[in-house]
């Protein structure tokens, strides 16, 4: 699955957008971040702080206005092999059956139908989806199932880096907890580098090895999370960490300049 490599680096990255309503807006300003191989880094920030932009740049979907992003030392100038992206709404293709959607990456690479279906079935099993969903269309699935399918699709090509944009934000709390636990289990088995953005402090503390707090366009705190795994969300040290991160987050958000 994931190899040894998987280092993501942002060096002085800025991104400016021209918007009709607000003119020029800086979504990122001189952003620096090094994600070592195999680390699960959570970027925590309020809505509109530039988290999604960060992932879009890392995925090669857009170029930065300034600065440089590298993956394993190579500049990112477009979508790179070995990088998977899971977005908040999943991005599942509504006309594809689950098994074909999960196998999309392999189909794009030219893998034969039988082989890619075998791999897709394996990925579907890994995210704990029942075999019956293979023939389902996305609109026939629950929100949680759709996110599992999106995760399976990203995992199916064996990425060494996973970029995750608030993938569990739209599901109910028990499902979100289950999905978080399963993500950690998969990450522990595969060892990918994961860059996970969220606005939920609890989610960040549950998942992260390291937690980067962002306010508008900038990283303002970088905290290691050394809690043992599996993490108990009711354990005193978890709650203590949660409160400390929340204090930092709220203090930084209060001091932050307005966006743009």
């Amino acid at each position, binding site marked *: 699955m994931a190899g040894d490599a998987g280092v993501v680096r942002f060096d002085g990255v800025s991104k400016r957008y021209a918007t009709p309503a607000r003119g020029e807006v800086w979504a990122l300003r001189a952003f620096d971040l090094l994600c070592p191989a195999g680390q699960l880094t959570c970027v925590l920030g309020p809505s509109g702080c530039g988290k999604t932009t960060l992932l879009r740049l890392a*995925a*090669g*979907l857009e170029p930065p206005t300034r600065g440089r992003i590298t993956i394993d030392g190579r500049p990112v100038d477009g*979508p790179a*092999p070995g*990088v*998977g*992206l899971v*977005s908040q*709404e999943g*991005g*599942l*293709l*509504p*006309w*594809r059956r689950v098994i074909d959607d999960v196998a*999309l*990456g392999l*189909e*794009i*690479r030219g893998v034969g139908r039988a082989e890619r279906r075998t791999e897709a079935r394996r990925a579907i099993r890994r995210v704990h989806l029942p075999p019956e969903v293979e023939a389902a*269309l996305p*609109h026939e699935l629950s929100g949680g199932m759709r996110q599992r399918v999106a995760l399976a*699709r990203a995992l199916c*090509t064996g990425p060494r880096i996973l970029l995750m944009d608030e993938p569990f934000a739209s599901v109910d709390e028990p499902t979100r907890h289950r999905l978080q636990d399963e993500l950690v289990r998969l990450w522990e088995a595969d060892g990918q580098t994961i860059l996970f953005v969220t606005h939920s402090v609890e989610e960040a503390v549950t998942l992260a090895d390291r937690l980067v707090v962002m306010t508008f366009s900038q990283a303002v705190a970088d905290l290691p999370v050394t809690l043992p795994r599996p993490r108990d969300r009711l354990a005193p040290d978890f709650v203590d960490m949660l409160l400390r991160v929340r204090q930092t987050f709220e203090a930084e958000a209060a001091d932050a300049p307005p966006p743009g």
Partner: protein
Amino acid sequence: MKLKRILSRLALGAVPPILLLVIWYVASVGSVVVPSIGSVLEVLAHPFREPPALDATSLASGAAVSVLRVVCGFGLAAATAVPVGILVGRSRTAMAMLSPTMSAAMVISPIAWIPVAIIAFGLSSPATALFGDEAWRYGLLDRVRFAIVAVIWLGAFFPIALNAAAGARGVRDSHIEAARVLGAGRRQVLAKIILPGAAPAIMTGLRVGGGIAWRVIIAAEIFPGTRSGLGYMIATAHEQASYQYAFASIIVIGAIGLGLDGLLRLAARRVSRWQPKER
């Protein structure tokens, strides 16, 4: 239960044709203009018989020529309008360049183009282009006049292109980006994302375009220089007051149109089955 529902739907659908038949029957009694139902059925029962009092080919031959012309014009329209529509739907430059012209051309009746098409193409056909003076030997090919095909193409092109453009524009960026991150290049994005995503709208355009093509052919065949097809048969029957042939042609036009729309509707249902039904 299901059978009962189907039968009840069929029965409801049969009401207007039965009413029409009754009106037709009443109107034909003692009339020299409205043909009797029996005389029209007689024509329909012998589709390969050359009309004795009419300077026209048989009903079946006329229908075959009309269908062939529609297949050529509509096929050409589909082959050109879908790529143009997708280009307009996905490229701002193409949209700025072509969209106003397409919207303006859309509202011009295809019939208005007939004189222009006749000036541009005259009586030429694939047979005259390929075989010159020997064209008359290739009967069916000689009857597919470029002018008629061009008019059908013009009639069907714009609804197909505008629907394809709307469909392509409606494909979500997140779907395209999902494929790009998985390694898809431009061609794969087109084949695996844009075309299937736009397919329901394209099929709507094909259905509308198909209907227009079938309506345009009849008008185009009435114009001078055409000596075959169902439109020609209607015009000739009118001139020679043999209205049973006109009525028989109209029934055949309706039946073929129904079949064409049925096929396109089936295809539309097939490519749209992923869309959840709204209740």
